């Protein structure tokens, strides 16, 4: 798959704004959480920031790099781990093991055996983490265990999941929409997603 769309100035501004929002939450932190949750959120938003900067520097072509695939796996894994550590601390160790195994699975298959195996592992890991990011905040908000605004994190999860699924279908050669269209929406969607995450966490404090 060759990503040909050139990045525009507007794309760069949107990505920078997403990066600054992520940087803000790294600095401000999220109140009332365990150390594991703090580390996980820092990792998630830190990777969002670094990914945004790399996209600005290297353009959309970087999305094909194994390094970025690995970095982008850390975002949903650490975000979902943070949510579990913050709200279901009893399960945090179990999910930490799942996250580490999943991450290592992606790294090993991506570097040692690229192809169908790596795509399946990647889809599985992203799928599990994505569902958790989407469903848990909604459930927590609706059940009153978190503030209503926390549901925005679920919205952000759904949006980033959409992008992920679109890119995955693109890689399989059965695109839902054209790559030009996906990439034209990508920076804006990443900004909205990050804004939803940040707002969700801030409104839950």
């Amino acid at each position, binding site marked *: 798959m060759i990503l040909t769309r050139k990045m525009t100035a507007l794309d760069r501004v949107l990505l920078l704004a997403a990066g600054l929002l992520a940087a803000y939450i790294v600095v401000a*932190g999220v109140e009332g959480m365990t150390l594991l949750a703090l580390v996980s959120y820092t990792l998630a938003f830190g990777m969002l*920031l670094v990914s945004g*900067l790399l996209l600005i*520097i290297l353009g959309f072509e*970087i999305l094909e790099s194994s390094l970025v695939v690995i970095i982008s796996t850390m975002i949903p894994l650490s975000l979902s781990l943070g949510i579990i550590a913050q709200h279901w601390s009893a399960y945090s160790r179990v999910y930490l093991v799942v996250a580490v195994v999943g991450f290592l699975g992606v790294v090993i298959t991506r570097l040692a055996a690229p192809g169908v195996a790596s795509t399946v592992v990647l889809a599985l890991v992203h799928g599990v983490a994505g569902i958790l990011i989407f469903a848990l905040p909604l459930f927590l908000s609706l059940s009153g265990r978190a503030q209503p605004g926390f549901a925005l994190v679920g919205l952000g999860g759904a949006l980033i999941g959409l992008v992920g699924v679109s890119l995955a279908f693109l890689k399989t050669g059965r695109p839902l929409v054209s790559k030009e269209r996906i990439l034209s929406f990508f920076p804006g969607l990443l900004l909205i997603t990050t804004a939803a995450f940040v707002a969700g966490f801030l409104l839950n404090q």
Partner: protein
Amino acid sequence: MRTWSASIKRKLRLYWTMTKSLQTGLLLTTGLAGFMSARCPVINWQILLGMAGSLFLAISGSTVLNMWYDRDIDAKMKRTCWRPLPAAQVSPSEALLLGLALSALGIGWALGVDLLYGAIVFAGLFFDVVVYTIWLKRRTAWSIVWGGVSGGMPVLAGRALGLGTIDWIGVLLSLGVLLWIPTHILTFSMKYHDDYQAAGVPTFPAQYGFQATRWVIAISSIGAALAMGFAAYGVGMTVGYLRLMAVLSGGLLLLAAGSTLRPSERINFGLFKYASLYMLSAMLLMVIWGI
């Protein structure tokens, strides 16, 4: 009248090109960060403006003098042959005069602002022009160490001006820049390897090979991240800012590791660009934190 005005504008544009505005801007930012890490909020605008002005002139002057001395090298390299001196848009004597005037103004102003500050700015200019460019650049690939020493002087000068003395945090900040320089310059010398070969400039990739150079980049990136981290801690940055500094450093280390273990032209270029962004962000963080 209009022709005269257009001619001056054209000349000023050429002079501006010769100051390498982006590089000068980055070094100026490190100086401001060093100053503001020691004295924030800034209450004496006279000193701040004096520092910014003198540092800008001194850095620009040394850059122009470097271009004057290296005009024969620049003419042999595709990347630099368009510059005003090799392209014969500015004469060597004119460039020398400009470089000396900017340097003298910058150093003079800096000494007027503060003697210790002025001495450090002078040391930076001396290491850059005399030790790095004139003495070592054409002799050894290790000249970049001295280029790094001069690159670390603006932040040290800024901090010394803020404090009135040289402290370990200033030295660490300077060390951070010194260790960042190999990441910046060596990725560049790999990207333009053929250019440097054509000009006969000794570089690490040519002398020790690309893989060894990548390891040097990775190790110096770790050193730079550690130095900046400890300096940020020493300055008294709050935990949130330290977390962000750690994240930015993590990105630098990740790219350095990627460049070493799975080298590619794209990763190398990404590391080069990110390293500049990293240094700018780290310095801006110090400024923002201080405000």
